[in-house]
């Protein structure tokens, strides 16, 4: 579904963030991208959705090389939920916000409306369609942004810190949506600082800023103590407890 082949990238005047980075994400895979601040996690997502272009290497979304596509064409295949999406909402109502994507892709009006309603329902926003996004709470705004990405039914989902600041109920809703998307065969790339969330949801981990990044199975990543320390991430609580149990006489 997503193939990254030997990409390299550096911001002008800065040392390279990526050097010959490769990975593959198949349908139904959830890859967590972790690492300390400044390691290039959000930059990596911007390379995948076309807002940035790699200096070298190639990216293939659903088999199509993204170098040949414009950003709005990549958007048909790759959906992005940016960090603090509350600051990127621009429509007058939640419905208009979610409707934006389908309209850009020239979808039939009725089909678009049905998709909009379905997306709002999935995101727990049935009653809030006609509310101005700024009049919604923090979590609702996050989910309006999520609905407006889901409505386009992209094959690849990029989620940048989607879980931040959510309480249990909204977190549960998010994890359900992630599971549903996985079961529908999407590939999901998840940038995340919350290692408990990573442990619960991701099948593989890409640790940036730690030597030569490569994709590892989630359990294998967390078992590698040195790598975890190099990536400057904390051990999930469950694994800390398991370690405690393993140490007991």
């Amino acid at each position, binding site marked *: 579904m997503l193939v990254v082949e030997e990409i390299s990238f550096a911001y002008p005047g800065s040392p390279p963030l990526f050097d010959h980075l490769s990975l593959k994400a198949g349908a139904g895979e959830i890859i967590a991208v972790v690492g300390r601040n400044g390691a290039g996690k959000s930059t990596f997502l911007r390379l995948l959705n076309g807002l940035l272009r790699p200096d070298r290497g190639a990216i293939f979304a659903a088999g199509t090389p993204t170098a040949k596509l*414009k*950003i709005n064409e990549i958007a048909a295949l790759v*959906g992005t939920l940016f960090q603090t999406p509350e*600051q990127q909402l621009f429509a007058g109502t939640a419905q208009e916000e979610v409707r*934006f994507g389908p309209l*850009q892709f020239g979808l039939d009006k009725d089909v678009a409306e049905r998709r909009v309603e379905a997306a709002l329902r999935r995101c727990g926003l049935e009653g809030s369609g006609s509310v101005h996004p*700024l009049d919604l709470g923090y979590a609702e705004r996050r989910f309006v942004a999520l609905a*407006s990405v889901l409505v*386009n039914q992209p094959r690849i989902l990029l989620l940048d810190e989607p879980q931040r600041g959510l309480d249990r109920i909204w977190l549960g809703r998010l994890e359900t949506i992630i599971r549903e998307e996985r079961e529908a065969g999407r590939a999901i790339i998840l940038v995340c600082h919350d290692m408990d969330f990573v442990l619960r949801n991701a099948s593989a981990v890409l640790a940036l800023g730690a030597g030569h990044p490569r994709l590892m199975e989630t359990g294998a990543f967390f078992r590698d103590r040195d790598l975890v320390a190099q990536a400057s991430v904390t051990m999930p609580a469950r694994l800390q407890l398991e370690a405690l149990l393993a140490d007991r006489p």
Partner: protein
Amino acid sequence: MRSWSIHRPGTSALHRANPLTKLAALLLLAALLFVLPWPGAWAGSLLLLAAAFGLRIGGVVLRRYLVLATPFLIAVFIFHGLIVDRPDRMPLAAFLSYSQEGLTYAAVLGGRISLMLAGSLLFVATTHPAALLRSLDVAGMPPGLSFLLASPLLLIDEFTKRAGAIRDAQQARGMRVDTLSDRLRALRLLAVPLVTLALADAQERSGVLNGRAFRAFPRRAVLSPPPDTALERRLRHVLVAVSVLLVGCALWLG
């Protein structure tokens, strides 16, 4: 360095002068507009731009001058010289005609704009906005007024970032920016949320300012006031007095 700023640090007398003194000099410049004939105004602009080069800030001042002045001056000359109907209209070429009176008037207007712009740019390039604000506080200017000056300067970059974030989100949801009409549409989609965000921001920031006792008193202390001397204070008085005199004479003599 902020993206819009043309301020360049330096050690010239102009750099070191108190911002209020420089403001008084700008006031004199404005007063001169009442008495200077148009060739004088243009000569004055050239002099000020040359002075900028002498202060090693010529490049940045000239660039900003050209960007700001050129469209305006072209418009003024076309409008008054070629479009406005005047008694001394003369044919020029094809359907165009020109008026000597109109061109002269454009030269007067253009000269005034040019002189004030050159003076203002010289001021801005040699005065850090923070120093200006501090000097206004020291002078007892109402804090709210100086805030109105400062906050757009500081928040422009914030809003540019916000606008960029909105545009990225729109593109990542399929918005096209290929044709001119696409781009105009994109601008329109950007304008409304930015204004809404600005208003919401303004409300929250007013809470923040109240919380930190802004405008609790008519005057506020200043931790690092810009240097000032008795000589500069006397010079300011002279500059203001001469300005008032010039304007008074100009109005008296009609």
